[in-house]
């Protein structure tokens, strides 16, 4: 059997970060977070544990909202969504995310689509997982050019949510709410601290027990490549086909 691929390692890592959530929401074009959510659900089901609800935006099959596009946000505001994912064109060391553009706003030299729901969800979803595969100084900057949503807020601002972890193609960081900084907790196999430091435009802490990002046991890999991949193909056919080819 093909050993765990880097992509699969990211998926199982996200599934670990989601452990314990009751309801996870996944953005429209986020196949890996969707796969991770489905993996977690399959694992919980097999263990006879409570199963997380998964809402995939834009999907008909994996979306049980009946009150239009606003319901996701209402649901999050009510505290009914425990985890969500954000990417971003830029992310800085204070956990600020920029989905709007590089350069001076409003005439951004590089314009991205826009903030979508981030300027709200980042404040009200307890476990926001920042997921950006491209790990370069262009993405991980010292200070974002536009704050779609800030990583932290002054104490008087009511806020139940915020950054929880940052996962990239090189490693996994956790966000330290007190220090308002990221802490590198593990490196993916084949990558070094020096490499991560060179590719990161902001300063970060390093966990004393910095180790290798965990892989998956045989049972997890079976679940991932079996029922999860089949289920994912219904919503993300192109991604699933590519994944299937990578492990053939």
């Amino acid at each position, binding site marked *: 059997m093909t050993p765990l691929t880097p992509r699969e390692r990211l998926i199982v890592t996200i599934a670990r970060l989601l452990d314990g959530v009751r309801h996870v929401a996944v953005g*429209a*074009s986020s196949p890996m977070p969707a796969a991770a959510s489905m993996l977690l659900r399959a694992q919980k089901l097999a263990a006879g544990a409570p199963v997380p609800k998964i809402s995939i935006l*834009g999907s*008909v099959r994996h979306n049980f*909202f*009946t*009150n*239009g*596009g*606003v*319901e996701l*946000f209402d649901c999050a*505001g009510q505290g009914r969504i425990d985890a969500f994912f954000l990417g971003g064109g830029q992310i800085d060391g204070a956990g600020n995310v920029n*989905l*709007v*553009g590089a350069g001076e*706003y*409003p*005439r*951004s*030299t590089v*314009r*991205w*689509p*826009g*903030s*979508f*729901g*981030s*300027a*709200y*969800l*980042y*404040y*009200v979803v307890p476990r926001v997982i920042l997921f950006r595969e491209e790990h370069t100084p262009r993405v991980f900057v010292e200070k974002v050019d*536009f*704050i*779609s*949503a*800030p990583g932290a*807020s*002054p104490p*008087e*601002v*009511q*806020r139940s949510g915020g950054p929880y972890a940052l996962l990239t193609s090189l490693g996994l960081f956790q966000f330290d709410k007190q220090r308002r900084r990221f802490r590198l907790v593990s490196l993916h196999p084949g990558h070094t601290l020096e490499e991560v430091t060179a590719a990161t435009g902001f300063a970060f802490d390093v966990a004393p027990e910095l180790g290798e990002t965990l892989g998956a046991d045989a049972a997890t890999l079976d679940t991932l490549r079996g029922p999860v991949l089949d289920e994912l193909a219904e919503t993300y056919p192109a991604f699933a086909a590519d994944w299937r080819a990578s492990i053939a």
Partner: protein
Amino acid sequence: MAPDVTLDDIAAAVHDGCTLAIPVDYAGVAMALTAPLIRRAPRNLHLVCVPTGGMQADLLIGAGLVGTVETSAVSLGEAGGAPCFNRAVRAGSIRLRESTCPAVHAGLLAAQKGVPFVPMRGLIGSDVAANRPDWRVIQNPFADSADPIVAIPAIHPDVAIFHAPLADRDGNVWIGRRRELAAMAYASRRTFVTVETIIAESLFEDETVAAGVLPALYVEAVVQVPNGARPYGLWGKYPPQTDTVIRYARAARTPEGFEAYLADYLAGRCP
């Protein structure tokens, strides 16, 4: 309901400076109105994307109809960035009212309720809020300690347009669970709808169906346009034609490419 209304009549209702509300890609975009609108060419439109814009917004921007875009994003989804929007941003040729999805919904909700604003969590400390002087941070009047919250003013579009699967002859429109379409209609002065099918029997006959109906009270006119959302999909009816959107994205990368595409588009040579 007004009888014998055409797409051109609806386009004519969109006047210079009109605040025009359009829905997100997957909610039912009245794409068939795009070409009539561009031919009619009202100027300086204030586009309200509910809550994000796609190919329709990009075409209207590229054709020079839009002065202001109020949105939480403009994107072609899988086909990538919205080329005309991005160009207009770089050129500074459109005013941006940068928003976030729930703030667009909040503004429409305020209008729906006939109240001046709706308060909303989040936003404080973001550059989204910093660039919206029309939003106000207020103190929660019910809190004993400091509790800042953002007041989002009502959004009152002049015109809303969208596409839905079904209407009856009385002008009642079936929107199912796409409730943002109702929110748009409640908030807007005039709402025009294109539909796949118009049926003779009233949508209120069956209580199960009636729960998903936007009453004619809020709808000025309905025009039957089969496949009226294409190349976007229509929930429960047909999927999006992603290849067509990708073709548009490629063509519109340059102003010349966009002009050529637009000429074909207006001539009915691309969907």
